[in-house]
């Protein structure tokens, strides 16, 4: 009963916030509502007994990614402040978006979801770590992911770095 109530409150908040993110003209407010949406998702994780995942969701998505989005909005004041400028790709975008939504709804409603009847783990941190870092776990994908992120960071530095040689070429 309590869990169902929590789920429906969270679900309404998430969907409402997500719709507002898409439809609001003010980009900063849209970013704030995106944060609300992320927090709602973290709440869903908590009702599913995934407490570690919920904390990481808040730490990464609210604490880091949203902060970067807001920083980008602040940096580009003026141009981005009043929402999404539209161009002639508007109608194709609507069609592609609607098609994707239809496919997703079809996939979610028709597939048979396997529901586990086991009691949820009370301490999820240690089993997660064992799965991620043990020898027959996911250590190789984790390492590959880390290398990929490092390469992305280095690439970002290389792209944004000022080249002292061609200063007059800029602008």
């Amino acid at each position, binding site marked *: 009963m309590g869990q169902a109530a929590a789920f429906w409150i969270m679900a309404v908040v998430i969907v409402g916030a997500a719709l507002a993110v898409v439809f609001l003209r003010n980009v900063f407010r849209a970013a704030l509502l995106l944060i609300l949406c992320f927090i709602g998702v973290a709440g869903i994780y908590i009702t599913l007994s995934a407490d570690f995942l919920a904390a990481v969701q808040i730490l990464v998505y609210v604490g880091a990614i949203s*902060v970067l989005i807001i920083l980008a909005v*602040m940096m580009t004041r003026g141009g981005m402040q009043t929402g999404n400028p539209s161009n002639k790709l508007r109608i194709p975008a609507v069609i592609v978006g609607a098609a994707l939504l239809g496919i997703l709804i079809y996939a979610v409603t028709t597939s048979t979801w396997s529901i586990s009847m086991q009691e949820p783990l009370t301490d999820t941190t240690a089993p997660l770590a064992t799965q991620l870092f043990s020898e027959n776990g996911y250590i190789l994908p984790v390492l590959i992911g880390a290398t990929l992120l490092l390469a992305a960071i280095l690439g970002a530095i290389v792209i944004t770095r000022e080249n002292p040689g061609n200063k007059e070429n800029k602008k």
Partner: protein
Amino acid sequence: MNAVSYAAQAVPADWPGGYWWHWLFYTVVIIVFVLVMVMGAIYIERRGMGRMQLRYGPNRTGPFGLLQPVADALKVLLKENIVPNVADKIVHWLAPVIAFTPVLLIFAVIPFQNGALLTDLNIGILFIVAVSSISTVGVFMAGWGSGNKYSLLGAMRNVAAVVSYEIPMVLAIIGVVIFTGSLSTGAIVDAQDIPFILVQPLGFLIFFIAASAEINRSPFDLMEADSELTAGFHTEYSGMKFAMFYLVEYAEAIAMSAIITTIFLSGWRGPWLPPWLWFIIKTIIVFFVMVWTRATLPRVRIDQLMALAWKFLFPAAVINLFVSAIEVLVWPDISQWIFVGVNIAVAVIAIGVGTKMFKPGWGKVAV
């Protein structure tokens, strides 16, 4: 009472009887604790800093000026609430609330005594890190919603500081977690037969510096540097809403002091005195050290702020993490006193080499 009596009397998990009574009791306790401690902190800061700067500080209201925070609170609550015309009204109104809520949430997992806390989460310390990062959103909202360039600049400096200092801070906590083997705050206190300030001296220093930067304490308070930015993100706030930000500032300082007490100074543990009193004494001592640094050190520049985080704290935190991990993996059973000596030596070397980086001849930092 003898020296070990603290461990004997663990408070049961749902004291005082029942889920909702537990919730109600600790919610009230946390709110009262935060408000009273903030009043005390403001008093300590103003009087203590006055003493350090060879002046009296406020000493007229009540005995020793003890009632000055009360008078200030009343004054600020009665002031007019001004909202700028160009402000984003809703964001401007919500910002203080969103900045304040996470600070209260932090205290949900801080043990005041053995077992005396709102909820002993399995992920306690991670919860603290995650929740305290929401506070930043309130600061942005204040900076953006005010529609003022000084507010915006203050908020942007805050982003830069928080994003940079969160990394060494979390790495310093991981050192503690490695020694404890648990993320729960209760288990962290239980594991501190030797306080972690001795086992993790480098981690403690990194955490203290990063925490000061994260909550805008001087010498890292350049997001509200009065001489450059008027008052930073809360320039356009007045009355009750300004009071909220003032409250957040000191409540965050108290929260960080309480976290440092819990994870580095063995929390409520101590001889003779009752455990909750030990907890409060240690929290006040940590806060006093923060006041002391504020009175001693000049404010850093923004480039120095970034350089300190990325060129000194981050490598030092990684070294601390590696040393701790090797110690726990290779010698899991020997006495922790050996690690105390080794880790103090590591800390001295790391700080010695690190400070060389900030001197003109060595290192690449332009002067």
